[in-house]
Each structure stands twice: as C-alpha cells, then as structure tokens.
C-alpha cells in the first residue's frame, strides 16, 4: 500500500549540507496502523513530509499503491502537530471539514453526510458552527482529525498529532484514533516521539535512529487487538515492549552522540 524504499534526504544550503535521512525503507500494508518512533531531532517530520509529497526527496522513492509520490497524492490526508495552525481561523468547524470535499467536487448531499458523520465520530456535532479558536486544543485537533476522515483517504499520515495536548486529552485522542481506525481500516502512518503512545497504538512500531536516519528496528506489537488505556497498559507484555523500544532509542541516541 505505502512503500518507502531507500528514502534519502539532504538539506543543502550555501556552505552547509545536512544529511537528515540516511536511508529509510519501510512499508505499510493496506489497513495497517504503523507507528514511527525515534529520538528527538531524528528527522521524523522530514520523513513524513517526504512521504506526503510536501518535500522532494534527495533519493529513493515513496509509492502509494504502486504510484510514485511526486507531490501530495490525491487520496492522502495529513494531521499536523500544530493543530492551531492547520485549521482556517476564518472558517467555522463545518467549513473547515467541508473545504477539501468541495475541492474534490463531492456532491453537496454527500458532502453534508460526510461532514456530519465525521464530526459525530469525533464527538463534535455540537461545535459545527463554532470557529476553531473558540475550541480547546484537544477539540481543535479533533476537528483536524474529522477533516482527514471526511476526506476518505487511502492513507492517513499523522505527525506527532498529540504532542501539544495535555495527558488526559491525549489518552482520549489515542482511543479516538484507535476506534476510527478499527471502524474504517484506513492505512495509517503515525509519527510520534512518545514510546508509550507508539506501543499502545501500533500494530507495528518502527524505531528510527538519530539523524542521518535509518530504520533500527521494525517491531511487531503482539498485544491483543482490543486495546484499552487501563488493561493494555498494565499488561506485562506492554511493559516489555515499551522497555525494549526505550532501550533501542537510548542506543540510537548514544549512537548519535558518538558521531
């Protein structure tokens, strides 16, 4: 579904050459939810922007359904970390969710259906007429998620979407993502720096090294599918996986510091 092969990215500016991504190869199967986790500053966002077609890669390629990505693919949606800046403040919640559908030429009746359905699924039916700045941070990120879901993407990319919300909101939003994913089975690539979050959400967790980034480990998360903040997180296996990923990241960090 989503194949990233030997992706390489170098930022070149006069007198400076920064190798952000060494070589990353990973694939996400149809309907899979894969979390990408790595030490801070490891080029997670660069990777995601390359996958989204927002940033040209220096080498290697990204394919969606076999089609190479050269610009933002038509059936891909992104939820950005900066929720406050990814919603249009001059539009209401409903208009924000509806705009991409209008551009996709979705008929009005279907559009209304999709907007209402997606707002309901994130629990914001009552806020449709509000402006984003009238909502809390967590609610704003829900709007961004509703917008992505209403777009009916084949691939959903999430760039540390919950990094800027408080812990309780974060837990709610994690469960929201799990529920939406279970209902729709949208192929999802979820980038985060939070190890717990990666293990809790992912079917697989891909651990990245520090920059220049490579894949250190592609770990299958063998936790039961029906996940729950309380029971899943208190499973011994959860602790083991979490500890394992943590050690890997520490290793990545140490490795990076040696360079």
């Amino acid at each position, binding site marked *: 579904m989503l194949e990233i092969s030997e992706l390489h990215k170098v930022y070149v500016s006069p007198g400076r050459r920064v190798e952000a991504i060494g070589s990353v190869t990973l694939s996400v199967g149809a309907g899979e939810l894969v979390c990408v986790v790595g030490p801070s500053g490891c080029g997670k966002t660069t990777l995601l922007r390359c996958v989204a077609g927002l940033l040209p890669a220096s080498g290697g390629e990204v394919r969606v359904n076999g089609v190479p990505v050269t610009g933002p693919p038509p059936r891909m*949606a*992104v939820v950005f970390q900066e929720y406050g*800046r990814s919603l249009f403040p001059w539009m209401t919640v409903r208009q924000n969710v509806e705009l*991409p559908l209008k551009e996709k030429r979705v008929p009005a009746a279907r559009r209304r259906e999709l907007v209402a359905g997606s707002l309901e699924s994130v629990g914001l039916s009552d806020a449709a007429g509000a402006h984003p700045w009238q909502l809390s941070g967590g609610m704003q990120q829900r709007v961004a998620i509703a917008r992505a879901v209403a777009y009916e993407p084949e691939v959903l990319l999430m760039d540390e979407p919950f990094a800027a919300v408080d812990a309780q909101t974060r837990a709610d939003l994690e469960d929201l993502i799990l529920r939406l994913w279970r209902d729709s089975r949208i192929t999802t690539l979820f980038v985060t720096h939070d190890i717990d979050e990666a293990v809790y959400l992912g079917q697989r967790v891909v651990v990245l090294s520090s920059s220049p980034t490579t894949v250190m480990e592609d770990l299958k998360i063998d936790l039961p599918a029906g996940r729950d903040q309380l029971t899943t997180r208190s499973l011994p296996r959860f602790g083991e996986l979490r500890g394992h990923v943590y050690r890997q990241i520490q290793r990545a960090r140490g490795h990076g510091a040696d360079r």
Partner: protein
Amino acid sequence: MTASGPLKVLRALAMPALLVLAWWAVSGSTFYLPSPAAVARAFAETWLSERLVDDVLPSAGRLLAGYALAGLLGVGLGVPIGLSRRLRATLEPVLEFFRAVPPPVLVPLIMLLAGIDTPMKVLVIVSGCVWPVLLNTVEGVRALDGVLADTCRMYGVRGVARLRRFVLPGAAPQIMAGLRQALSIGIILMVISEMFASSSGLGFTIVLFQRQFQIAEMWSGILLLGLLGLVLSLLFRRVERWVLAWYYGSGAARA
C-alpha cells in the same frame, strides 16, 4: 473599565467641549481666529447649501474612486508579488523607492500627463494610496502560515479556491492595515489635488475663502474636512470589525 451608556457619551464629549471652550477663550484676539459661534454660523451658511452638491460631493466622489482603485490595484498587484519570491526580489527595492516619493510632488507631473480635471485628481489619490495597500498586501501574503499552506496542498485546495479561502483571508489583517493608512493619505491628497488647479472641491474652496479673507468660512472648511475624516475612519472601523471578526475573536490582534 466598563462605563455605562450615558457616562461613555459624556466622556467622549468632554474633550471636544473643553477644546471649544479654550478656542472661545482665545478667539477674537486676532482677525484670523473667529469665535466658534461665527465659524458655526459660517459652517451652516457655507456647507448646508448648494456647495454640498457642487464641492463636497465631487470631492468625496473623487476620493472614493481613487481609494477604491488604489485598493484594487494594491491588492491585485500585491498578491502575486507576495506569492512569488522572484518577483519580490526584483520589485521590492523599486517599490520602496516609489513609496518614498512624497505623492504631492507628483501632482505637477500628473497634471502634465492627465490634465487638470477629475482624472488627474483621481490619479493623484491613487498614486499616493496604492503604496501602503500594495506593500502591506505583499507583507501579509508573504507571511501566510506555512502549516496552512501545507494543508491546502495536501487537500488539493489550489487556484482560485486557494486565493479565496486561504491567501486573501490570511492576508486580510495586513491588507486592512494598509487600507487604513491609505484612507488618511487619500484625504490629504484629495485636498492637495484640488488646491493646484481646480474650480470645485473642498481644497479649492478653502483656498478660495482664504484668498478672499472669508476667515470664518475658511475655518468651517477645515472643520468639515476633519469631520469627513472622522466619519470615514469610523465607517472604516465598522467594516474592519466585520471583515476581521475572526481575527479579533481569536485574540490574534492582541498577540
């Protein structure tokens, strides 16, 4: 600091009343400073007559025409310049130069090119008003949020929709700031253009009164100009509040 209705009105009127009193106290000491009563009488006689149609309306019409034209031109040129880094690099030094040229000195030049009638006056107003609008639009478009730009790209918002839904609203706070500056420049240029070669208009009339030693009438003209400016800026604030409701609501204006 919440004052009730009547108190608010009282507070707003206190300063003008004080100024009129001070004016009263010093008036009469010289021929050139008539009393408020004399000016008020002259005001009623001069402006509540056919002069309103012959002088005030043409002036206001030229001001609005020039202002609207400058607004369209400024935004129309500012958006492409703001969107293109290359255009900006080429044009910005030149634009700063043109902006630095005081518009009144263009009046003789524009008179040569466009004659002395209405087109000249409108052109003078445009030549002064266009710069703040243009430069503010460029700045507003240049500073559009990168995350929103990415959002537009991801969700296929491009072309006209991108302009209408993203670029123009996003730059609107800056564009409005430019338009506000342009409004006061426009009033100044309206008067100046009429002082050069004219047979009607507010600027012309005020100069005429001065030359004929109709001092109270001259003062009443100045008073009228002040009132015109006040009304226009109040109207502008209304429009701005409406256009930028989201901006004031979000608290971005305070940040």
